[in-house]
């Protein structure tokens, strides 16, 4: 089985792109399944099921979705193997832009969209910086110049990634993407022992542990204060 980890800011077009890519793979007889990771809510599982794609969803609820991903990926891969998939794709929404779910030996794809603004590549951390492939969507509604500037900026923060424009609505570029995602010679048996590409923040503060009261007296653990400088007189 092949494994691909797809991530990207909310509503960037991940599901649209994955669905178009699966359609291209299906026509070549490749069996694909998806697992969607989200925080509080997602309807993506329905969209996949409607397209006849085997799907699982995991809601992290009170946990950081990327931490939740790391705790569950091993079982998910087992599910994919048992379902006899040729390719398992995980979709997770990058929420704080600080964590990223990519594993060192597994293809990592970041989906971002042209509408998010040209300063976005700078704002997204390891989620974009350590992806192998960057898919840029929604090029159909911005100008050529904006697409060029956006792609150039993505390439400045991640020069080693392949950058591929894909239209999530028409599927233009999805066939091309599918050829980069599935390689029959590549087999992932298990992800046990694999490593995250980028360590997640070590933070654990009072509020992570359920504290609700505001004030220095209630703050323990990894507490970080803003530097506000001198008051402006």
């Amino acid at each position, binding site marked *: 089985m092949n494994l691909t980890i797809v991530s990207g800011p909310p509503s960037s077009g991940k599901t649209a792109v994955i669905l178009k890519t699966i359609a291209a793979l299906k026509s070549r007889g490749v069996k694909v399944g998806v697992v969607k990771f989200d925080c509080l809510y997602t309807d993506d599982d329905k969209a996949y099921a409607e397209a006849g794609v085997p799907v699982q969803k995991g809601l992290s609820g009170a946990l950081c979705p990327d931490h939740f991903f790391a705790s569950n990926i091993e079982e998910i891969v087992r599910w994919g193997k048992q379902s006899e998939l040729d390719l398992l794709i995980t979709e997770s929404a990058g929420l704080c832009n600080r964590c990223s779910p990519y594993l060192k030996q597994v293809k990592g794809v970041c989906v971002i969209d042209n509408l998010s603004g040209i300063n976005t590549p700078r704002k997204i951390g390891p989620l974009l910086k350590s992806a192998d492939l960057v898919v840029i969507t929604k090029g159909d509604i911005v*100008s050529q110049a904006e697409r060029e500037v956006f792609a150039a900026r993505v390439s*400045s923060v991640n020069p080693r990634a392949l950058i591929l424009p894909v239209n999530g609505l028409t599927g233009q570029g999805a066939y091309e993407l599918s050829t980069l995602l599935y390689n029959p010679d590549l087999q992932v048996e298990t992800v046990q022992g694999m490593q995250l590409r980028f360590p997640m923040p070590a933070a654990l503060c009072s509020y992570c542990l359920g504290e609700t009261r505001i004030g220095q007296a209630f703050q323990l653990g990894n507490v970080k204060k803003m530097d506000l400088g001198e008051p402006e007189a």
Partner: protein
Amino acid sequence: MTNQTLAQLLAQQPYAADFFKQNKLDISGFEQLTPAEYLAHFSPEELEDRALEPERLLADLALYLEQMRDFLGLDEQQPLRTLTILPGRDKAGQAEDFERLTLHTSEIVSIVGPTGSGKSRLLADIEWAAQGDTPTGRRILINDAPPDPQWRYSSRHKLVAQLSQNMNFVMDLTVQGFLQLHAESRLHPDPAAVTREIMTAANRLAGEAFALDTPVTSLSGGQSRALMIADTAILSASPIVLIDEIENAGIDRKRALELLVAQDKIVLMATHDPLLALMANRRLVINNGGICQVLTTSPAEKAKLGQLQQLDAVIAAARQQLRRGQRLS
């Protein structure tokens, strides 16, 4: 590069500044350090806090500089002269009925066929420089040879630029700021001059002139399209331009095509507007996923174009009168 100081690096390759800026690395005050020494000045806490990996950043910097050097060198090295499409098959698996289709720079070819007939697939085949590895099995040659993979994978040097009716400006910038930004990202040696050049060209296309300090998002439909076309013609690095219809109002479409062609572009234009379709010397008819005919525009059709252009001028004049609050004469 490794033993150069940041100051030396920036003097020699000024575009390195953008790498530091996009990676949120403030190097001011550290110019006398090498990149490695600069990255070593961060404490482990700072590195974690800012999600930085010095080794990866150094490797990325080297790669970025190499890509930029390649990009700057490309324009002179291998200009595109011809684009050749070798036939594949349609959705039913039927071989396409042409031998080889070669387009030259400064040529306009129109593409016609019902929605869903395979226009997008053809455009995608060209964009991806297909080598028999897409559903159509078509192959694309550049200057009569299989293309360099850089056309496929380089983010800065794409084969194809696209213009369509649905495209809008979304940046919160004035025309001046917008063009400046694009020129810088293209590493243009003289952003001010090219900005003036694009403005002049765009205002020749637009029905109503606009100024450099106009926000791009408040341009009218015709003005936006004029600016997009002038900018793509003059500043985009892509030698092929794909156009998906150009609206009729507020823009001189004949001049727009002339501008693209004057910049040595190959123009492929999907349109059902006879005024545009007949301006091309050839048109590809697409059906069921395949190119089923390649028509050369006949003298009779060119004569027809003349009549249609006269009609169009009558309508345009009436529109202008309405706008001015006059009675139609």
